[in-house]
């Protein structure tokens, strides 16, 4: 590891005795390498110390890690890396589903299985979930965690009042091994105050509206340290609404926190949310602004279309609603429809009959993955001749663009109608 610091120098950070022991290698090479990495990152942000964490959520699959990442993981295994706090894994890239339209590489599947086995060997619970806050672990107000998926981070900071930065790649693994993370960014109260005022005048009727709001606010303010304060929500949003808002803000704006006045715990009032800061910008968002987001998408006439419900994975109640919308209908000839969720939700959706309704309607349900991170996705797109991708996820229509889909955001019921009629509207 190249560095501005020597291997035993903590730079801006003061270490306690246990951390010094880790740095000396007393707790083994995996922990030593982890804390060295954390000190380098902490120094970039001028962190002064570590904070202890209670939980880590790691991100990594063969699609994003590649062979280099897998080798790194194998070395961690050889060094007997073991998580010191409860740890879960994010959505993965391999669906292991038989649908011939979604064929993936067998050699890469074997590597993915290797990754998952190594995770389990490190004491990681392979939940394969990008919504751990809905059904794996809900940190409490003020609790420090190290989560490696942006949608999970913004939900933890904003809705739960827990504290985490984006902890990507090796970062969340390192935190899991050492049980701590450098104290910078959203671990500090100063970063959590609002910077941007949003007056919400739109009626929010679907999770896609919340995704559209995330695009309107996030896209012109791309800044990790921007914290929007949203006022004017006229009803109590559901967890799924805030999931889509957060995922969209994180995607378009690279943001890690928002406040919703009267809803989220650090925003009993706008004044409290800003904490004495003056907003750098003020926005008003109306029904017309939300509608303009939908209207700006254009269908391409050539090629086939796919409707995708994913990004983040669906909760049990999203599965229930979708099954009600698809009940008794069929995906239209020439159209495709895909849902992604995690194993926990799928298991209950199957038990409760939601999955059966969807599958009888011709919907493919993928477990443990998110659509945009699927291994071999560009080739899958080409093989199916898909040009348009229609989704109710504001995040998905943004994140999938490297695979050259033409994306269209629509409300949930409209997505179902498009899937079942084939009419692109």
């Amino acid at each position: 590891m190249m560095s501005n610091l020597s291997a035993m120098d903590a730079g801006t950070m003061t270490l306690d005795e246990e951390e010094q022991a880790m740095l000396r290698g007393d707790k083994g090479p995996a922990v030593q390498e982890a804390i060295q990495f954390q000190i380098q990152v902490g120094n970039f942000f001028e962190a002064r110390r570590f904070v202890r964490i209670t939980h880590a959520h790691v991100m990594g699959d063969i699609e994003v890690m590649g062979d280099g990442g897998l080798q790194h993981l194998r070395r961690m295994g050889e060094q007997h890396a073991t998580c010191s706090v409860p740890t879960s894994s994010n959505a993965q890239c391999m669906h292991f589903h038989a649908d011939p339209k979604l064929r993936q590489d067998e050699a890469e599947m074997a590597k993915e299985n290797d990754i998952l086995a190594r995770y389990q060997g490190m004491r990681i619970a392979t939940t394969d979930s990008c919504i751990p806050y809905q059904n794996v672990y809900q940190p409490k107000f003020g609790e420090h965690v190290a989560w490696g998926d942006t949608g999970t981070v913004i939900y933890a900071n904003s809705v739960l009042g827990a504290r985490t930065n984006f902890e990507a790649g090796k970062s969340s693994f390192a935190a899991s091994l050492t049980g701590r993370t450098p104290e910078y960014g959203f671990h500090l109260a100063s970063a959590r105050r609002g910077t941007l005022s949003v007056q919400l005048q739109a009626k929010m009727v679907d999770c896609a509206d919340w995704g559209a709001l995330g695009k309107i606010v996030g896209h012109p303010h791309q800044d990790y340290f921007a914290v929007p304060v949203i006022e004017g929500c006229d009803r109590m949003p559901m967890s799924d609404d805030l999931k889509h808002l957060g995922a969209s803000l994180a995607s378009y704006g690279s943001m890690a926190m928002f406040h919703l006045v009267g809803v989220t715990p650090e925003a009993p009032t706008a004044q409290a949310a800003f904490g004495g800061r003056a907003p750098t910008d003020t926005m008003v968002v109306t029904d017309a602004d939300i509608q303009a987001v939908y209207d700006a998408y254009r269908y391409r006439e050539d090629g086939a279309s796919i409707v995708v419900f994913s990004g983040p994975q669906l909760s049990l109640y999203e599965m229930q609603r979708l099954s009600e919308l698809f009940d008794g209908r069929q995906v239209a000839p020439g159209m495709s429809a895909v849902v992604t969720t995690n194993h926990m939700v799928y298991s209950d959706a199957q038990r409760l009959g939601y999955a059966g309704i969807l599958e009888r309607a011709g919907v493919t349900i993928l477990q443990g993955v998110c659509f945009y991170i699927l291994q071999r996705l560009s080739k899958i797109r080409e093989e199916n001749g898909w040009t348009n991708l229609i989704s109710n996820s504001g995040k998905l229509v943004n994140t999938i663009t490297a695979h050259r889909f033409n994306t269209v955001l629509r409300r949930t019921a409209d997505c179902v109608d498009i899937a079942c009629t084939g009419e692109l509207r």
Partner: protein
Amino acid sequence: MTRTITVTRAWGSAVEGRALVMREGFSPRYDLDRWTGVISRIGHSSEGESIKDRILIIPTSKGGVAGGWAFYDLLHKGIAPRGMVFGKLNPVMVQGAVLAGMPIMEGWQENALDLIGNGRLVRLDPAAKTISLLD
């Protein structure tokens, strides 16, 4: 005299390379074909350009956590950039750069996007927190 630009934060060893100046945010997941190293998102300001061996000059980091592994993966595939300079970044870029041993900088006093022409030879000196324009 060599023109230099000062940055706020920096990490890594000194490096030289040709600049690839982007006019919009960058994410290795949203914008890049990670098997060829070519910017693939339709309409990106650098669409069609390869990042291999370039020094990326980027106004903002975009989106998600993919960069945490992606730069290390690009290095392994032999198509990594030599360094990155951001106007504003998120921690993912730093975490990914440190894992890949790739120099990274953030925050310019003078607008590097205007001063550094695409394709110019630049030198990043993280210890001095400077970018030097060499040609």
